[in-house]
């Protein structure tokens, strides 16, 4: 068997045949997740202790369908959750927690350009519609929660590597980006616009696992 090794994920092997086109009717779904956190216990000599916990999880899932060859309509759901909690028994007892949730729904259009059976580029314009919520508790203050929303538009290109005809890895590239965003919480409003262009490949980008399931004839 002919083994071709991918640069970044070399254990993934190339399957036998690959179709270059993303044909009309092909269904797509993609997902990624990242998480990180820490748990800390602090103990001063002879006087109680304090604890601090911070956890962040950010899953994303998207679905799409090709309405024409190389043109896909899709919908992505992104969530970002941050839990922060601190508890202290040094001198006096004190406890507080802050949590933040951001759920964003993004309808988007993707126009693909296949470079080879393995590689493709896409350009993705889309909308961001988000719900924001933060809630906090503490021993000394009243419980507090805030709700908000955000709305924005974006456009950026991306790259797809088809590991097999059905399975691909993709990344969004910020070579060209345009983002328009309005966010409103109970106590604050913000409006932002940013646009940029660069010819340098950014240093860091996230990878998404994705599947392309061609319509069976």
């Amino acid at each position: 068997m002919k083994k071709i090794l991918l640069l970044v994920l070399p254990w993934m092997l190339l399957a036998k045949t690959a179709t270059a086109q993303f044909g009309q009717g092909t269904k797509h779904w993609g997902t990624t997740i990242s998480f990180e956190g820490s748990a800390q216990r602090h103990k001063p000599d002879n006087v109680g202790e304090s604890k601090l916990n911070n956890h962040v999880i950010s899953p994303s899932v998207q679905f799409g369908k090709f309405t024409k060859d190389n043109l896909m309509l899709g919908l992505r759901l992104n969530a970002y959750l941050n839990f922060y909690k601190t508890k202290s028994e040094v001198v006096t007892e004190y406890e507080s927690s802050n949590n933040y949730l951001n759920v964003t729904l993004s309808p988007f259009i993707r126009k693909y350009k296949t470079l080879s059976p393995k590689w493709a580029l896409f350009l993705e314009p889309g909308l961001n519609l988000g719900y924001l919520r933060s809630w906090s508790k503490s021993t000394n203050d009243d419980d507090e929660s805030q709700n908000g929303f955000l709305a924005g538009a974006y456009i950026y290109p991306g790259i797809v590597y088809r590991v097999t005809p059905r399975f691909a890895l993709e990344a969004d590239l910020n070579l060209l980006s345009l983002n328009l965003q309005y966010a409103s919480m109970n106590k604050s409003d913000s409006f932002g616009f940013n646009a940029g262009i660069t010819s340098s490949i950014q240093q860091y980008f996230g990878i998404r696992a994705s599947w392309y399931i061609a319509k069976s004839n």
Partner: protein
Amino acid sequence: MACSITGALAQYEGKRFVSASAGINFGTQKQDDYPSTNGYGYNFNAGFGKFKTQNMARGWSVGSVLAGGKSGIFRNGENETDSGISQFGANVGYFWQYYKHFNDKFGVFGGPNIGVAYNYTRGYDTSNGVTETKNRTFTLPFSLSAGAYYTLNERWWITGSLGFSDLFMVGYTHIDVENLDLKTGSNSNVFTYKFTPSINFPSVSLGLRYFFKN
């Protein structure tokens, strides 16, 4: 020596190689009205690998770093010095590399690395009395890395890194803080974890690799 132009690829199976970096440093400083200070340290990293097949190599990596010296601390209105080790680190890892040889000279490789690392640091803070902080960290990283090579001759490759991904990491840190004036202290235990499916392009770093005679 005659070489065919279409040239068969070089045979790598069974070949063993090493790449390494190492450094030592020492310095001393004397200034009027202040105690003399000095610093010393070393660092090294080495990877030993073997091609198990034409397209796959695996091996061990080891590394260590040490820094120390005599540094000045302003304490109780006087200039004092502290001598000792301020950093020590050691790591051991195992790597797998999968190769795509484009031709006789040039190719790319990439693969996963696992390892265990220990790092110790000791430092002073004089902003609120004199406090000494000692950090001891264990980490278990799982990462991916990719590179390219160019064959200089039968014995030497020049290699360059193309990208890496710190996919998964768990770590544990024990921190001791002691106020040297008040003789009080505290300790912390921190557990951290991280999963990030992303790729970093580093600034290009070049290296050499030596192949042993079989």
